[in-house]
């Protein structure tokens, strides 16, 4: 009846129990607070069922932030183990738990922090920046978000019921196969990724279509903000790469559940095929994350330098070049698999070629500052920190791209230091910069600058202290993912330094949380208008708070930085457009229900509760077919209503 599920699935070791109890208490506290403040209905109607991308974006960011804390807690355990307990056998963290923790750390940070923050920012910024009122498929957008949440729920459920994968964030077979991982851990990994991945794919297609079909009249491709170009690159990669992930995970899952032999070692299966496929998705995935960060910096640097972006066309070409090239380099993740010199050299050179457009971007950002008036607000500090860390990471990346060097540092902590260099110094700093930059647009008040700067310096210094020792350790011969090492190797000192770095990073996170809380508390003192940074792009043109329809009128644009030109060239004739009734999508709970069903289906498959999986699948299909047949899906905002609302939001009529 209940498949593999039994009471044994409950956690046994103290650390996991602690995590489950802590998480459970936090959820209970949240529920109690909602009940006490009578906010259930508010939460349901204003947020959970909303199809407004601005609200979905905020929900993505909230989930990503909570998951960042989970991922950091995992990282803290890894650092504690390697700094303190690794040289003895009696630490609190067993080898098995350690391996679950690093597998969870990588998976959560990529899929539920970086991807969550990415889609959060896309939801918030893309429609506004292209001057649109919504995304192409609002309901699909909500379903994507709830599939993302479903994946997140499953991966965290593995703490309380069962176990998580011990096979690393990419779960290479044969280790992830049935023979070596018979438990539910790998299945949790597969299904949380599978479900969240489908959400990402749907969302990617949705936003691509939004960008291609819903731009403001007059906004030709070459007049789009460069952030939108970066998003196009990112989403093309999503559209082409995520199907590979879905297919690969499906095959691994079939191997594990019905005994096929796609990736097994025997019976004609080939684990090397998995390694190729997973990186054919995995490498573009890295660029899926970094391209929007490039885009964010390309918005921030001109605004804070009060100058046009240097080399728009170069930037666009560089983005498209990176997009294309990112599909030609996957093999550099396994030069040591023995592909032969020609193949290795080819992929090594293709990898280095990516350094050319990336270098061009860095130069163009720096030359945007040249002869500008650079204001070093926190977004700009994140940019400076990004260039420093990203350039170091770029250099170590070129090192790793040379097969002869990779032979010596592959799978060592040098590699770990490199990709954290890119993902923290690149992706995360970019997203932090974006949040600091766009925060006032959505809230109407600044984030506190002083606390933001303290947080930035903690992150930057903490990052250097945490990861420079890992480069050294890698060159000393330390492999990644070690839960123990011999004391005589003399590595412990550097691991302790890295642990101290981790503590400094945690201080940075603490200050970020304090910053958000303090800014909300003191919001009346930090209050700003709709365009606090003297922005250049259309999101700054609308009112703050932003009406649910974003823009009252869709006046055509003429220039690349149309909003800036309108502000600074009074001689220009302002284009106008008629106010017309606006259709906005009505709220619906379909997304929430699909997400819920996805959790049930995923859980049922993981535990082999087949009847439940079938019921869940059938219900989902019926629900979605019914959903497509609905007719009463939109509400019409009348002209009078728009006029009244604009008057209230702007103090003037539109």
């Amino acid at each position, binding site marked *: 009846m209940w498949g593999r599920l039994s009471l044994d699935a409950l956690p046994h070791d103290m650390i996991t129990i602690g995590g489950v109890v802590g998480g459970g208490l936090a959820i209970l506290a949240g529920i109690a607070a909602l009940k006490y403040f009578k906010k259930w209905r508010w939460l349901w109607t204003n947020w959970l069922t909303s199809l407004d991308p601005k609200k979905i974006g905020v929900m993505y960011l909230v989930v990503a932030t909570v998951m960042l804390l989970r991922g950091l807690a995992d990282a803290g355990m890894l650092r504690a183990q390697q700094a303190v307990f690794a040289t003895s056998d009696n630490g609190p963290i067993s080898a098995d738990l350690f*391996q679950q923790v690093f597998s969870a750390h990588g998976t959560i940070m990529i899929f539920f922090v970086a991807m969550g923050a990415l889609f959060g920012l896309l939801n918030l910024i893309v429609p506004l920046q292209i001057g649109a009122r919504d995304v192409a498929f609002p309901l699909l957008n909500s379903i994507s978000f709830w599939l993302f949440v479903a994946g997140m729920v499953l991966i965290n459920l593995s703490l309380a019921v069962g176990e998580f994968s011990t096979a690393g964030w990419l779960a290479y077979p044969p280790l992830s196969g049935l023979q*070596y991982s018979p438990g539910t851990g790998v299945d949790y990994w597969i299904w949380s990724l599978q479900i969240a991945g489908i959400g990402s794919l749907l969302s990617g297609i949705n936003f691509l279509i939004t960008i291609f079909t819903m731009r403001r009249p007059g906004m030709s491709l070459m007049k789009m903000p460069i952030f939108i170009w970066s998003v196009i690159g990112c989403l093309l990669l999503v559209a082409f790469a995520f199907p590979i992930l879905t297919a690969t995970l499906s095959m691994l899952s079939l191997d594990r559940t019905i005994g096929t032999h796609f990736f097994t070692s025997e019976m004609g299966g080939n*684990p090397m095929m998995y390694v190729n496929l997973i990186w054919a998705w995995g490498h573009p995935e890295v660029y899926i994350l970094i391209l929007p960060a490039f885009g964010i910096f390309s918005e921030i640097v001109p605004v804070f330098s009060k100058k046009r972006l240097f080399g*728009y066309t170069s930037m666009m070409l560089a983005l498209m070049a990176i997009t294309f090239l990112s599909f030609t380099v996957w093999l550099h993740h396994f030069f040591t698999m023995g592909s032969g010199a020609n193949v290795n050299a080819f992929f090594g050179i293709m990898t280095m070629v990516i350094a050319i457009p990336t270098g061009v971007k860095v130069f163009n950002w720096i030359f945007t500052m040249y002869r500008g008036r650079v204001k*070093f607000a926190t977004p700009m500090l994140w940019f400076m920190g990004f260039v420093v860390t990203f350039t170091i990471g770029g*250099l170590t990346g070129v090192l790793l791209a040379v097969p002869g060097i990779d032979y010596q540092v592959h799978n060592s902590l040098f590699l770990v230091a490199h990709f954290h260099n890119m993902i923290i110094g690149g992706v995360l700093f970019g997203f932090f910069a974006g949040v600091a930059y766009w925060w006032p647009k959505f809230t109407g008040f600044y984030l506190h600058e002083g606390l933001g700067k303290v947080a930035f310096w903690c992150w930057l210094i903490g990052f250097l202290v945490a990861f420079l020792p890992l480069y050294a350790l890698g060159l000393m011969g330390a492999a990644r993912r070690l839960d123990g090492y011999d004391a005589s190797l003399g590595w412990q000192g550097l691991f302790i330094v890295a642990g101290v770095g981790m503590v400094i990073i945690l201080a940075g996170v603490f200050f970020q949380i304090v910053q958000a809380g303090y800014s909300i508390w003191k919001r009346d003192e930090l209050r700003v208008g709709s365009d606090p940074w003297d922005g250049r792009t259309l999101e700054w043109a609308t009112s703050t708070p932003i009406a649910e329809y974003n823009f009252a009128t869709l006046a055509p644009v003429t220039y690349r930085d149309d909003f800036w030109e309108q502000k600074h060239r009074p001689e220009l004739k302002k284009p106008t457009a008629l106010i017309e009734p606006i259709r906005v999508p009505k709220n619906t709970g379909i997304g929430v229900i699909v997400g819920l069903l996805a959790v049930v289906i995923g859980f049922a498959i993981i535990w082999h509760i087949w009847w439940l999986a079938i019921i869940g699948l059938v219900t989902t299909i019926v629900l979605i077919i019914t959903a497509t047949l609905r007719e009463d899906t939109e509400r019409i905002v009348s002209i009078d209503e728009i006029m009244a609302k604009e008057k209230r939001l702007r103090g003037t009529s539109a």
Partner: protein
Amino acid sequence: MKKSRQPFFTPWRIAILACLVLIIAGLGTFLLLDGKNIAVLNPRGIVADKEKDLIIFTVLLGSVVVVPVFIMLFAFAWKYREGNTKAAKYTPEADGNRVIEVIWWGIPLIIIGVLSVVTWTSTHDLDPYKALESDKEAVSIQVVALQWKWLFMYPEQGIATVNEVRFPEDTPVNFTITADAPMSAFWIPNLGTQTYAMNGMSSQLSLQAHETGEYRGSNTNINGEGYSEMDFKAISTTRQEFDLWTKAVAGSDKHLDWTTYEQLARPSKDQPVVYYMLHQPKLYDMIRGKYMDMNSASSSKDSSGTMNHEGMH
């Protein structure tokens, strides 16, 4: 708007600078005191030598871009800071310069071009499948990654060892590497080049130590619970010592055949060093054969035990 001139060295800035100086000083001290401990930069073998040179070359070449980036970043940030309205020009409309842009598409292009040539030649030179050339006769060692220990077999000498591999100095050592475990990786940092060990596959790796010495070898690819305990000793001896040692081990009363192998192959941690007389000379092929199905076995079984991996070459 006029602001009263703020001193550059505020307490906050001093604290931040102090931290950065401390990091750099710490790094320097570490390199000075512990530099000899950095295996990859202190090679003891012919392959690792070349790989270290490649690292140094690439870092220097990369610095041609990295150093100007850092200089320009901080110089522009300082010169064009908001407060510096008198000394710095301001051209808000400037949005590009064909010449400058061509230069920095060009410079990285040239650098990567140079590096590509070096990459192509070095990758062929360092191809682990290429046996090192020497006037001395090479030693062949078969390596099997197990959960969680390393088995080394010397088919010519008729011996086998666990978690310790010995070979003569200044002589090419040709490893053929497979696994009877999840994918693992064989790495002796002082000697160079790591290689994956995979079920049913036979990877090749040719290494050569300059002199006698004892080096640490390990597994770098997660293969289960005991992964981090898969260290082994790689000991380079004189030819004479090596010959004496192999003779002594060949006389061992511990025999390695299929039965003892199956016991050994069971997952175990903390495996001590063991010496065996290799009773079953075809053992390596039999281990690989466990993972061969009818389709691929016919095409790949040859006497040397090298897999049709060349298909990928």
